[in-house]
């Protein structure tokens, strides 16, 4: 990789151990992907929940954060993805003091770097929307796909260590979605169906992601009749990234870069995976995808609105759907949003309207990143209902039986105590 004099000095340790570690990590990753050089980035976003950090990851952060302040401070605005635990709600959710203690240690370490503890996966809605052509180091697959697709910004999936490295060096290896050549559409889909709500937008994203099945595929989607809006594209992209590891989609006339269609197969893909032509998705296809998770009549243990965090508009929709009814005593209804939206919901009165029904509103956690397996064991949870296709995809690995319903049916199920 080509390095500037400043980067060479960082690698030699002249800017301290944290930046030496960071650039050495970035060179290893950059060389794996044949990056020619490093590109300056304007923001970093770190996924650093303690469930995935573990004791080893927290210790790594603490060791790095012990460097002198000038050596450890981040060089660009650096945000955090949701945390493993909300200190206001963890006891109600069956999380432990040991989890809280580990979380506290991680927060102290991250703050020592000068990281802004935003604790959200909807920073593009609530903190600082990216702009077209802006190079970023975003650390949440839903944030990356939304930033790349809707705004035309440029980011790869940056895992926690790599996003921290980008924060410390102010740059990232130039490969993947930083380059024009990877941003061309490689697959075409045509919709014969218009999704009716957020759960269906997520399901549609999940279907396209599963079909693409690779980080290096870029789907172009035709046949969407009206601009879906931010929350729909949020669920659509997050599910696509979850099911397919997809990082960029194009909707002609709606996403930032939509006219540049090139179905050239990517180098390195096994020949059997190359496809051409247009794949059509019908109402029957969408219904079948959702029906695969169906569980009508089953007792429901936990209803979750999260993954991604709820916007203020979604918070209002949950409050309206609850309509002052009581959540069933044997069912937990959990709503997860960002600290910013939680503050707004408190001020506007939405939190009170939701919590008066017996529901829990948590800030800065996103459920699946929050010791979901341990919460299931502690609370006896098995059957989960949600309107998030992304959550449905993830949570099976934690021992849950997920079912995908509209927001209204999720709320009705929470009230009834069974899937309605």
């Amino acid at each position, binding site marked *: 990789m080509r390095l500037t004099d400043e980067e060479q000095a960082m690698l030699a340790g002249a800017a301290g151990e944290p930046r030496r570690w960071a650039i050495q990590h970035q060179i*290893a990753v950059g060389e794996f992907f044949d990056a020619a050089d490093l590109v300056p980035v304007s923001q970093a976003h770190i996924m650093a929940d303690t469930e995935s950090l573990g004791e080893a990851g927290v210790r790594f952060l603490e060791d790095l954060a012990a460097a002198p302040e000038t050596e450890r401070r981040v060089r660009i605005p650096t945000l955090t993805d949701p945390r493993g635990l909300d200190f206001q709600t963890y006891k109600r959710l069956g999380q432990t003091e040991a989890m809280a203690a580990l979380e506290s240690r991680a927060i102290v370490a991250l703050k020592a770097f000068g990281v802004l503890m935003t604790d959200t996966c909807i920073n593009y809605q609530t903190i600082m929307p990216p702009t077209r052509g802006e190079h970023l180091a975003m650390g949440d697959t839903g944030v990356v796909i939304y930033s790349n697709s809707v705004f035309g910004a440029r980011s790869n999936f*940056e895992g926690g260590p*790599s996003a921290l490295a980008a924060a410390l060096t102010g740059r990232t290896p130039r490969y993947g979605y930083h380059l024009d050549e990877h941003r061309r559409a490689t697959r075409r889909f045509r919709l014969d169906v218009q999704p009716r709500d957020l759960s269906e937008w997520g399901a549609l994203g999940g279907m396209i992601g599963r079909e693409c099945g690779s*980080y290096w595929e870029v789907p172009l989607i035709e046949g969407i009749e009206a601009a879906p809006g931010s929350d729909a594209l949020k669920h659509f992209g997050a599910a696509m990234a979850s099911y397919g590891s997809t990082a960029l989609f194009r909707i002609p006339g709606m996403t930032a870069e939509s006219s540049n269609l090139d179905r050239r197969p990517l180098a390195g893909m096994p020949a*059997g995976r190359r496809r051409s032509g247009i794949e059509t998705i019908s109402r029957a296809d969408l219904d079948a995808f959702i029906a695969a998770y169906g569980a009508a009549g089953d007792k429901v243990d936990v209803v979750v609105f999260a993954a991604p965090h709820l916007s203020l508009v979604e918070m209002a929709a949950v409050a309206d759907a609850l309509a002052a009814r009581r959540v069933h005593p044997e069912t937990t209804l959990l709503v997860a949003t960002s600290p910013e939206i939680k503050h707004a919901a408190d001020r506007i009165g939405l939190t009170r309207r939701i919590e008066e029904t017996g529901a829990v509103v948590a800030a800065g956690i996103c459920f699946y990143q929050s010791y979901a397996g341990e919460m299931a064991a502690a609370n006896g949870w098995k059957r989960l209902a949600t309107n998030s296709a992304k959550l449905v995809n993830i949570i*099976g690995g934690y021992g849950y039986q997920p079912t995908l319903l509209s927001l209204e049916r999720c709320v009705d199920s929470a009230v009834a105590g069974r899937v309605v």
Partner: protein
Amino acid sequence: MSIMLRCHKGIGPAVTGTALVAKDNFSARYDLDRKAGTFSRPTHALAGQSYAGKILVLDQAKGGVATAWMLHEMKSSGVVPLALVFNRVNPILAQGAAFGGVTLVDRFEGDATDLIRTGDRLRIDPAAGTVEILNR
């Protein structure tokens, strides 16, 4: 007797071990019981099987960002695959392997999940970009 497969230059130390192969994808968060060291996602082709100490040979890396931290934690607990061999990975798996010091290679001439069989003895040299099947 051996078969030499060529791939892109990889990450991590050279290792020798036994292959566990499936035509499926991989995410540490979505698919694994990381304490037991088994595939926990019921729909995964390797559901119920142990990955500890094995060379995992799979198609693609998928899904969440968490794998980048998790390989490091898995390595420190000792319940970790010996190496990862994929047709094509996403950045997260490469970042996780680099951070955790886990051997990773991808981009073969052909489909690695056809070329390699479960039980094969493999020697992986990431710096050279080679995987040698020692038993055939």
